[in-house]
């Protein structure tokens, strides 16, 4: 079990896992959550942002996909700027240190027990922070139901709203930035009760940046 960072560098070796990722995205966002705009006849949810600059973060158990999320650079078109600009009342947060977190999903079997943050959820969040701290990223843009905001605050993210929550169907949605640092990582590991690194595999180019 481990977290894999997938970029243009190494996506070639993840063809099968990425296939599972697109199918999980369709199952969760279209079939479960009813985002019908994303429906595709082949059951693979892929959009215009899945290009060479997207960073896919996969949580794999052997070759089985357990969880997924995608990071998009704020310097290029992303969901807040292209799809949900109405959620941002001021200027768009833009910079090399700011990336957008989207398409977070976990297979049904690995979801929150009760309503606690699941191990899969913790590992995926920890992976963002580990990846961010090592790649000069310190802030993420999130569009989410405001109910999750308290949880991020409790995990020592510094969460700042970009707009006022809006109704989307019967639920609310708010755009925020969440800044993090090593304290956030320590907190996530503490909550997980495990001090080990969440990321197990990442492309060579990331390691070069780190060195």
């Amino acid at each position, binding site marked *: 079990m481990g977290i894999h960072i997938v970029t243009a560098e190494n996506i070639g070796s993840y063809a099968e896992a990425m296939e599972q990722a697109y199918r999980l995205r369709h199952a969760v966002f279209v079939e479960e959550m009813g985002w019908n705009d994303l429906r595709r006849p082949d059951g693979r949810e892929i959009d215009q942002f899945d290009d060479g600059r997207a960073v896919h973060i996969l949580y794999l158990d052997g070759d089985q996909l357990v969880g997924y999320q995608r990071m998009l650079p704020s310097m290029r078109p992303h969901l807040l700027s292209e799809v949900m600009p109405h959620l941002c*009342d*001021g200027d768009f947060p833009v910079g090399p240190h700011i990336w957008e977190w989207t398409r977070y999903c976990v297979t049904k079997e690995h979801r*929150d027990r*009760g*309503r*606690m*943050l699941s191990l899969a959820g913790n590992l995926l969040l920890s992976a963002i922070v580990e990846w961010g701290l090592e790649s000069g990223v310190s802030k993420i843009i999130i569009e989410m*139901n*405001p*109910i*999750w*905001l*308290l*949880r991020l*605050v*409790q*995990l020592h993210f510094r969460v*700042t*709203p*970009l*707009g*006022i*929550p*809006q109704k989307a169907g*019967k*639920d*609310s949605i*708010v755009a925020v930035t969440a800044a993090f640092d090593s304290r956030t990582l320590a907190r996530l590991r503490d*909550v997980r009760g495990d001090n080990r690194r969440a990321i197990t595999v990442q492309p060579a180019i990331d390691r070069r940046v780190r060195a």
Partner: protein
Amino acid sequence: MSRRSLDETLSFIAAVDHAGSADAVLKTVLSVVKPFGFSQVLAGIIPLPGMSAQQQVANVVLHQWPEQWSQRYFSQGYLFDDPTIQRVTRSTEPFLWSELEGSYRDRPSARRIMGEAREFDLGFGFTVPMLTLDGQSAGFSIASDRGELPPQYRGPLQLLAIYAFGRALSLADTPPSVKLTPRETDVLQWIAEGKSDWEISKILHVSEHLVDKMARQIRIKFGAANRTQAVAQALRHRIIR
């Protein structure tokens, strides 16, 4: 309009981040909600069914609520029949209490609770449901005797509730550096058990005036807005039980 709401929300968040006590958080909240006519605030983690009155009070993190009502509410176990609490555990969307009326028309216990609350000037309320990291439901309510809330203020108030609660919860989880005298501990223990100042004065063989004075001293030591808030903190950190 929304740019201004956002700016106001951001300055509220900055103010709440600097609040050093539950009392300071409450004052910041009240300064924002008073213009809407709200004067009462109650926030806490929703107790699980079967929890004692003391455990319920220990779950309170912000309390600016009619004290006599809280006393009755917790000691009578009203919480478990309260339709606002039931909604908080089932829904993620903020709501006005008036929107629930249809849902408890057939439940006399719920109707009685909402009716009695009205007698304590809690006739009009707005509640924001939340979810903690541990997966517990939490609620943040503001209330007054009557009023109205224009729909465009719901979003800003939802954010206000979440940040105020987050700050209050982190303050509540920090063990207070409070040193109570044995006498003060006794007084607080009896307050937690619902005794009046007069009853405590008889139990401890002191004047009622002294009990009141000690209660105020205890409140100040905890930086609490009122007795219930002080009791909640003391229970949470097992200064009393």
